[in-house]
């Protein structure tokens, strides 16, 4: 049954775990550890985290490019984690991706036209004229001239290549597009153009986005809800403006504090000296943020916190919440005990 009829989420990830094998004699690493999230039709879910958080692994797992160790990924009513090759190919029509690096996303030896017609060739058997019309219409929607099809990727700038990549993703009218750091490699002014483009396309085509990024501000601008990931686990999730303005989890707060603001008046850096970061060894099975957390206590080292509702409309995985003021001094004395 189609989720639009039932009103359920378009993408529903539950307890997803992905293990990556290390080098020859090393134990496997959990790139994702029981991650759950969902995307409703027509909405944008932002996925935030730093390097090593597992955001790209999550995108690749949903796309079927990385094997899943356990958990479920339901998309449009189908279970992706255990799907067969043929069914996945049919579903890939509705699930597309835009990657980060515009220079690696297009085969330099093929023309733009060939790159754009690739998804069409797989999913539809359109006559050549209809194909050309569809390509032209999408190029227009992303703001590129029609003669782009004859040229090679080397002739285009990063921003233009990203538009081509977006056009390619939308060629077969998908329901969900995963944007994996799609604007991170672009200049600020081009980034703004692409963000506007993505917003416009969402409005015109009713497509959902899973928007992965390390930049809180960018994610906040485009998303209705945000999920914060750290070392493969969800730290906090909730509405975009709450997460990005008044977060509850200490990691999200640290992210927010570290994100430099362009307003010199608000800059906190000038006040700080050359301080060292507290480094503690974390224990297995404990909270992944233990080693860097300013308010961690003994319990945090051994017991993994579950996602619980916090004071401000979000869900956070932290033992110290709900705590009216998580930055109190008692944290330090607790830890020394």
């Amino acid at each position, binding site marked *: 049954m189609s989720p639009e009829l039932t009103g359920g989420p378009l993408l529903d990830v539950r307890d997803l775990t992905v293990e990556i094998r290390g080098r020859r004699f090393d134990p496997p690493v959990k790139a994702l550890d029981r991650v759950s999230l969902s995307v409703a039709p027509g909405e944008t879910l932002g996925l935030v985290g730093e390097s090593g958080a597992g955001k790209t692994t999550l995108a*690749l797992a949903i*796309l079927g490019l990385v094997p899943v160790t356990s958990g479920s990924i339901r998309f449009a009513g189908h279970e992706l984690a255990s799907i067969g090759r043929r069914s996945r190919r049919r579903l890939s029509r509705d699930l597309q991706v835009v990657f980060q690096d515009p220079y690696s996303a297009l085969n330099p030896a093929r023309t733009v036209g060939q790159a754009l017609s690739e998804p069409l060739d797989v999913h539809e058997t359109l006559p050549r004229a209809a194909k050309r019309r569809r390509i032209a219409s999408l190029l227009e929607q992303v703001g590129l001239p029609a003669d782009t099809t004859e040229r090679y990727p080397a002739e285009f700038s990063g921003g233009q290549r990203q538009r081509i990549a977006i056009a390619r993703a939308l060629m077969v009218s998908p329901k969900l597009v995963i944007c994996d750091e799609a604007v991170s490699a672009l200049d600020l002014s081009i980034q*703004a153009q692409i963000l506007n483009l993505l917003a416009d396309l969402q409005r015109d085509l009713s497509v959902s986005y899973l928007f992965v990024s390390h930049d809180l501000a960018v994610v906040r601008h485009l998303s209705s809800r945000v999920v914060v990931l750290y070392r493969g686990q969800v730290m906090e999730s909730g509405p975009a403006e709450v997460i990005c303005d008044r977060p509850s989890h200490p990691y999200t707060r640290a992210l927010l504090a570290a994100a430099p603001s362009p307003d010199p008046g608000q800059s906190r850096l000038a006040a700080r000296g050359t301080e060292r970061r507290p480094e503690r060894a974390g224990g297995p099975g404990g909270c992944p943020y233990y080693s860097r957390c300013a308010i961690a206590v003994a319990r945090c080292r051994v017991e993994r916190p579950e996602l619980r509702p916090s004071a401000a409309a979000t869900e956070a995985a932290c033992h110290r919440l709900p705590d009216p003021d998580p930055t109190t001094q008692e944290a330090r004395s607790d830890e020394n005990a």
Partner: protein
Amino acid sequence: MTRGGRMPAWRRFARRPLGVAGAAWLLLVLLGAVFASAIAPYGPQVQDLSSALSGPTMSHPLGTDPLGRDVLSQLLFGARPTLVGVAAALIAWLVAGVALGVIGGYAGGVTDAAISRVTDLLLSLPVLVVLLVIFSVFPDALVMPMAILGVIASAGLVRVVRSVTLSVREELYIRAARVAGLSHPKIVLRHVLPRIASTVIVQAALFAGVALITESGLAFLGFGIVLPAPSWGGLIAEASQTLSRSAWLLLPSGGILGLTVVAFVLLGNAIRDTSTQAWAAPRQVAARRSAPAASSTPAIKEPSPAERSGDVLLSVEHLCVGFADRQGAKPVVSDLSFVIRRGETLAVLGESGCGKTITALAVLGMLPPGARRTDGHVLLDGLDLTALAPREIAAIRGRRIGYIAQDPMVSLDPTFTVGSQIAEAVRCHRGGRRADARRQAVELLDSVNIPEPEVAARRYPHQLSGGMLQRCVTALALAGSPELLIADEPTTALDVTIQAEVLALLRGLQQERGMSLLLVTHDWGVVAAVADRALVMYAGQLVETATPACLFNGPAHPYTRGLLASSPQLATLGGRLQAIPGSVPAPGTWPAGCRFAPRCPEVEDQCREGPVAVRVAAPGHLSRCLHVPSAEAARQ
């Protein structure tokens, strides 16, 4: 089939004379081999003992062999078995090499490991030895041993194809094709094979040469041919036996081998160049020595004499830098002037292509090949760096100016420990013994807040994280206690929480040592956090300079205003970002008037007429915009 007006492949090939020559020669040899009986002036066994071992004569243009047989005819008749052998080897080599290489590289895992073991084995087999063993059993066989040569030698091709396939497999367009639903065989056919084609072609040409030489060597030893049938190697054998009598025979026998191998190589290179030319980016040509061009824009000096006091450390005056390209010289920085005072942090802010990195490199005197300073001066505490000899400016580096680059993971030599590299820098600048230098290196690591510096000093770069490495590079840059530190996007490649620490570190070090900092960045947040003054660049020019507060609260140039408006941190939630339309013009395509005019929301006709001079919007606040009322005309 033409593509949008581009030249068809054969025509592109025809433009390469060497490739055409190679193809022509090979065609000649092929025709000679096929039609030998028709073309050759004599039969292969026709002897004329009276003119044995003669040099070139009218009736025997290439001379005769010891039995009086015509050399030219021998070569023609000998061509066929030779080429058959080469073809057998080449086909076996191609099939085995490409198949195993692509399968191993693409499939990965156990398959790849197994194929790697097999190639290791093959690479360890001394080929000629194996062939000799085979020939001891089958002395007359040709095709089978040559095919086996191809299979054994394919190990080299497997290695190369495998590594190219591995890197292609990681490219994002392969992932995109998988997501689009393309099956693996189709992906290999459509995306992988074309990318390995040029490598394979070049290797194939080389191997054809090797196979030819090997086949001749075997014939020289008497294997692979049924005597007395002629062969190229056999001719060399005859030459060796009669060396004392006449050396002439060496020339045609070796010559034909050499020419054919060279033809293979030339043809292979030409095909490779032809096929990649269509889509490759143009290479840059090294700049030719030429006199610096005269500056065409009016001279701009620092407006306020109070600022031109003795505490200016770095003064850049009318700097112009250009790149030499196939289409001629292209300016990338034009008429850039700014100062940095002692203890001050200047942020140079701009997007890609604005020339900020080139500016930093120009200060160091380390412009990349192809770039040249065409005008302007760089003065360090009064000393004109641009007038120094290479040795003198090398002495400045590290001792008076330090440098930190963008990606810490590749900023240090991976084959030396971090500590040894810092110690080397210490010894360069401060002299002293090795033990002292090592100790000072550890002290430097401590001063950049690295925990357990003695342990860190013994680590190799690949064992450290990005944040730690950037601190290590900073320690290296501080080894000579420089007065100015140039940091080119030092935090761009780092996580945001680490960014803040590294910036805090730089700020702290600067205050401790009274060092100046030239910080190149594209990030407004960095400017706001650490800069005392900021300079905005666009299309090679300074467009605005002020303190971060003035820049943020009262930008005086439409580009700056546009940039600030595009920042998602300052946008209203859910609203549209005010993006600047269009994109940065490439160097060489800059308009004659204001370079921002094509994208400017406030553009007027007068903006396009001619170059725009820098104006003073307020004390210490300059802007290159005609809409700024010039409170004071540019001085002097």
